[in-house]
Structures are given as C-alpha cells and as structure tokens.
C-alpha cells in the first residue's frame, strides 16, 4: 500500500497546492492573491517532475493495465496543465483586479475586495482538483478508483463553467453540462456495476483475469459485456463522442475561452484514459483475426468512432462561431483517437511494439498533440476581447472577428494560423505527426475502412480549419464591421504567452524535438496485460463474442507469416490453448 502511495506524490502535491490557493486566494491584498497562479504553476511542475519518477526515472515495474500511463499520463497532464494555467488569470474576479487597460488607456479602478464575492481561490483550487482527478485516472487500477477519479475530474469543471463569466449563458452552459454529465456518470457507473457483477471484482487486474477465464471457458458472460459497453457509452460524455456529444458546442460557447480550452483537454483526456484502461482490461484478443476487442465492444467503438468523426466534422462546417467550430472539431478529434483504441496495442515485440503500430500509444501521443494545438487556438480567442461602447468586455466569437489578425497582431494571428493548420493535420506540423500513428496503427490492425474514413474526415476538416487559418492570414478587416465594439487585446498577456508556447510547440515538436515524446508514447501503450495473450485464435471464443458486425472491408485475413521468422502472430497461435499466464493465476 505504501508503494501505491508513492505513485500518488504528484496528486498529493497538487492537493497541497489546492489547499494553499484556497487560502491565499482569499487574501484581501491583491499582490498576495496574485500568488495563486505561480503556486499552481509550481505545483504542476513539481507534479510533472514527480510523475516522471523524480530523479530516479520512470518506474515501469508497476503492474496494471497500462503501467507506464500512470507516469507519462500524469506528466502530460502537468505540462499541458501549465499552459492551460496561463490562460486562467482574468477569468474570474476581474472587478477586483486592477484591470491594467490597453495601451493609452487609464487603468480601471478595482472594486473593494469582498471575500464572499471573490472566486479566485475556488477557481484555482478547482483547476488543480480537476487536474488531480485526471492524474488519478491515469494511475487507476480499480473501477471504484477510476469512477472517483473521473468524478473528481468532472465535478470542478461544472463549477468552473458556471462561474467563468458573469453572463447567463455560462449559467445555462453549466446547468446543461452538469445534468448531462450526471447522466453520463450514471451510465458508466452502472456499467462499472455490471462489470463487477459479471466478474466479481472491481480490481482491473482481477477483472482481466476473470475475463480471460471466462473467454477460455467458452465466452465472456453477457453481463460483463453489457457492463463494458455501457461504461464506454457513458465515457463518451467525457470524450464528447457521438451519442453523448450534444452538450459540447453549447457548453464550449457558453464558457469563457480558457475554461473551454480546459474542457476540451481535461475531461477528454480523463475519458480516454478510462477507455484505454477498460479496453486494456478486456484485451485485443478476440474477433475473427484474434487481434480485436470483443465483438460488442468493438462494434460499439467502431460505430461511435465513425459517427463521431463524421458528425463532428460535418457540423463544424456549418458553424460561424470560433468556439463552436472548435467544439465540433473536438468531437471529431475524439473520433480520430477512437481509431487508435480500436486498433489496440498490437501483439507486442518487434515492429508491433512501436508507436506506429500501438494504437494506445498513438492515442496518448495524439492527446498530447491535440492538447498543445487546441490550447493555442483557444488562447487566441481568450486573448481577444470586444470592448463595447458601455465599457464592458466580451470574448470575440465569430470567425469574422479574426480577420486581418496576422497584420494587426502578428503573434496572435500566427498562433491561430499555426494551431488551425496543426489541428488540420497539415504536414509538417504536429497534428500530422499525431495523426500518422493513428493511421499506421489502424492499418496495422487491419481496419482499412476505418482509416479511409479517418482520412476523408481529415479532408472534410480542412474546410473549416482553412477558414480559421485564412481569416487571420488572408482576409482583411473592414473597419466598418466593428459594430459590436472595437476588438482589443486582453490585458492578461499570459494568455498570449500560452498561445505562443503552444504555437512554438506545434512547430518544434514536429521538427525534431518530438523524438523523446514519441519514445514516451511508445512505452505508454505497453499494456501490463495485453501482449501475453493477444493473437489467440477466435475459434476458442464463444459465438456470442466472435461476430464483429462492423468489420466490413477486411474479409481476408492478413497473410500470416510462417513462424520461422519469429513473427508474433505465429508464436502466439502456437501458445494457444496453453495455460494462461502465471500472473493471472496469481491474480485470481
């Protein structure tokens, strides 16, 4: 148990920092209140350091469905959390801050501080709590832990959405988000309960052992299967995938841009961590080729992935609001990442063990890429405000508001261009290198139709990303257009910095600095369970599990090499029918 506690140091760091900002943020002195952001940043950096094992390096001896995800998943959260943090100042409590005002503009006098009306402390604390929940998700090895972690990730975000602006649309967004979130949580909690009912344990390792035993004994029982399918459908809420995606555009639009950036990354990552853990618990050893998830889960994920990509991209074309475009694109990106989940980690060993074939690695890698690119796009929205005639501020919303940005504010304009081009997956930017492993892993797993759909969807996405990139770069702003008020840069320059960091990241990580990230991703996907039994022949499985309804194109199994060259397929087929791995006996 002590060992377990030692893996939680990053979370504990964040917790301590959250306690600290709750008190610091309520100080009557403005300069002390301003310490909240550095405290959070410091805590996140320390947490990143600790999650990488401190000076000792990443410990990969931990068991679990995805042991290394605990380390690199948390590190990723820490790093992108820092960028997200830069967007946070100014979201709440602007009236108590000395609004510095733009150049040549008198600073607005702040209101007298009232603790009861201030939200700085809570906002920062919730920010850290949510990231802490995300980190806990990465290291979960138990369904109850996973559920609590998911809720810890989500609950603060409901509040953050609601208090992010003083407008009614935030309230509406918060309420929508809360109720639909509760619905999603109820569904996956019910799924977890069914998994417990079907396998007799909540510990993922024991669940896995039980599933292996059931599969060997003639088929996974239907309660377990139903549990996994329900859990995944419930988690679709977190990742904004299709049957549960309806809230996304409204909530993103209603929330302030920094919070929308947060929503696009944190709950999505939590959902993907959870789905990765659950699918790794199931293992990719079913289906006709013996390298798929069990039939129902495979079909469900397949349908969800196709619908999510298509719906997200097609609806994004119709939007005019930047945040709605980014919301629908966030839906679409979830669909892309599900391709990696469906593809699975490959058989392990040789060419199978690299980022190119390992779908789980590809998902983690894409999460990092998506996080970086997405923050950039949202940072631009957060950095621009429309100043109304009556002196109030509001965020820009329409794509038309970006026109001519590269000329008027080159940093912001180029950030938007680079982020949009990156999200589009345009080589040589980061988005392309993120999508490439999804492509190769999908191809490697034999899901050609899915990869083609992924490709066509990337091309559809080009249409609206081009609008986002062309507006600042190619169009010029008509002065007569500024009806709603002049567009000014936000006085909180850290937001511009956040955008700049991510834009630099999008370029630099793609051109040379992505090597370590790629190796980290490669190790993330190494499942603690999967390789030991991937590749069993489907004939051993129960009829209930074999049929993979959505498996359409590849009716011809890939030619299996003779085992002479030591290929994975051959080796594992030989071990078919042998005793299960000793570890599972132990776990049982």
């Amino acid at each position, binding site marked *: 148990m002590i060992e*377990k506690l030692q893996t939680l140091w990053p979370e504990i760091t964040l917790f301590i920092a959250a*306690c600290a900002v*709750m*008190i610091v943020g309520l*100080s009557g002195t403005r300069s002390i209140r301003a310490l909240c952001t550095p405290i959070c940043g410091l805590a996140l950096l320390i947490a990143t350091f600790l999650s990488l094992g401190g000076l000792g390096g990443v410990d990969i001896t931990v068991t679990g469905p995805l042991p290394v995800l605990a380390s690199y998943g948390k590190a990723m959260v820490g790093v992108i959390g820092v960028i997200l943090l830069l967007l946070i100042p100014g979201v709440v409590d602007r009236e108590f801050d000395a609004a510095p005002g733009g150049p040549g503009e008198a600073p607005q006098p702040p209101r007298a501080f009232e603790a009861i009306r201030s939200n700085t402390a809570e906002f920062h604390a919730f920010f850290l709590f949510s990231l802490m929940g995300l980190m806990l998700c990465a290291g979960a090895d138990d369904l*109850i832990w996973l559920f*609590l972690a998911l809720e810890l990730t989500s609950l603060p975000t409901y509040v953050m959405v609601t208090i992010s602006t003083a407008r009614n649309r935030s309230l509406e967004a918060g309420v929508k988000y809360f109720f639909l979130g509760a619905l999603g949580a109820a569904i996956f909690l019910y799924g977890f309960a069914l998994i417990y009912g079907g396998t007799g344990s909540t510990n993922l390792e024991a669940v896995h052992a039980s599933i292996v035993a059931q599969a060997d004994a003639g088929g996974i029982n239907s309660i377990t299967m139903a549990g996994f399918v329900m859990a995944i459908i419930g988690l679709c809420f977190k990742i904004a995938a299709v049957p549960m995606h309806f809230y996304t555009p409204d909530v993103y639009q209603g929330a302030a841009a920094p919070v929308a950036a947060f929503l696009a990354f944190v709950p999505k990552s939590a959902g993907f961590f959870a789905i990765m853990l659950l699918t790794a618990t199931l293992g990719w050893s079913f289906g006709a080729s013996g390298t798929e998830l069990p039939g129902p889960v495979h079909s469900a994920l397949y349908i969800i992935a196709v619908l999510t990509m298509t719906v997200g991209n097609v609806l994004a074309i119709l939007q005019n609001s930047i945040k709605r475009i980014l919301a629908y694109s966030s839906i679409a990106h979830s669909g892309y990442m599900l391709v990696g989940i469906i593809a699975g980690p490959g058989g392990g060993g040789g060419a199978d063990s690299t980022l190119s074939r390992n779908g789980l690695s590809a998902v983690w890698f894409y999460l990092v890429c998506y996080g970086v690119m997405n923050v950039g796009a949202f940072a631009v929205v957060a950095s621009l405000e429309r100043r109304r005639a009556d002196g109030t501020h509001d965020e820009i919303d329409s794509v038309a508001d970006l026109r001519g940005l590269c000329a008027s504010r080159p940093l912001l304009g180029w950030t938007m261009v680079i982020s949009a081009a990156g999200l589009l997956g345009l080589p040589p930017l980061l988005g392309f290198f993120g999508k490439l492993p999804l492509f190769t892993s999908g191809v490697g797993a034999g899901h050609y139709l899915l990869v083609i759909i992924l490709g066509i969807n990337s091309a559809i996405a080009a249409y609206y990303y081009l609008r986002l990139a062309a507006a600042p770069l190619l169009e010029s702003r008509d002065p007569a257009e500024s009806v709603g008020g002049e567009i000014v840069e936000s006085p909180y320059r850290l937001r511009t910095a956040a955008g700049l960091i991510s834009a630099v990241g999008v370029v630099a990580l793609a051109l040379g600095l992505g090597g370590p990230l790629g190796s980290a991703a490669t190790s993330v996907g190494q499942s603690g369970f999967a390789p030991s039994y991937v590749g069993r022949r489907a004939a051993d499985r129960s009829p209930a599990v074999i049929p993979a309804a959505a498996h359409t194109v590849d009716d011809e199994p890939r030619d299996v090499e003779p085992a002479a060259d030591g290929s994975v397929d051959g080796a594992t087929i030989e071990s078919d029918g042998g005793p299960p791995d000793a570890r599972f006996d132990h776990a049982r």
Partner: protein
Amino acid sequence: MHGCLTSCGVLPGALNLPMPPLAATEVGSYAPVLLLIIMAITFAVANVVLSRIFGPRREGNIKATTYESGMDPVGTARKRFNVRFYLIAMIFLVFDIEIIFLYPWAATFPNIDHSTDQAMIWLARIFFFMLTTVIAYIYGYRKGVFKFD
C-alpha cells in the same frame, strides 16, 4: 479489492486486522449498544426536564409556533432563504463527514501493532485528513461564512 478507499486508509478491511467475530452470541457483546441507547434517552430526557426547570417562560404567539430555522412555517414554500443557511449547511457537512471518518479510524487504531511503521502511517493519515478539515475551516473563516451581520 484494493481500491482507492482502502489505500486512503478509510476502510479498515485492507489490513486484515484482528476484528471481533461478528457472529458473537453472548448478550454481553451487545452491552455497549444498550449503554448507548440508555445514554441517548437520558440525554434527551434530561435536556427536556432541565429546561423545564431552569428555563425562563415567556409565552406568546410566535413562541408557540413550530420552530423552522427562523422561517414562518405557514404560508408559501417559495420563499427566499438567506444564503447563509446554505453556507452553514455546507460547513456542517464538512464537520459531520469528518466525524464519520474519525469514528472508524479511532475504532481500528488501537488494534494496530504499535511497534511497526504501520501505526505511524495510520496516524499520519488521520493527521493529513484533519489538516484538510482545518484548511476547510480556515477557508470558511476567510470567506466570511462565520460572520453574521
């Protein structure tokens, strides 16, 4: 099950501590329960009796109404409560939960072998837990929830 709860030291089951058998048949093992019931009844009766004896008596219409947290119990239910009530309810919740967690801890702690590190870890855990409560208290204090004006 090695869940989150167990690893946080909240549920005692994880340590396999020597617990008294639940299926004990002697009546004597229920003595504490009986004692608790007697104490509760005594406390309630004593309060009523003592206030009857020592309390001042000022009869009146308002005094005769049912006590409903200072609200008029008769009339529309769609009334605005003072937001302070929510704050107080929250603070109450914090301390209430704290008590709920403290009891099982206190009940388990004596059974731990005090010569090992385990005891220190258990102690550290509850101190950590208490610390969070203290922070919640400080937070509430600075937020001004204890001020009524």
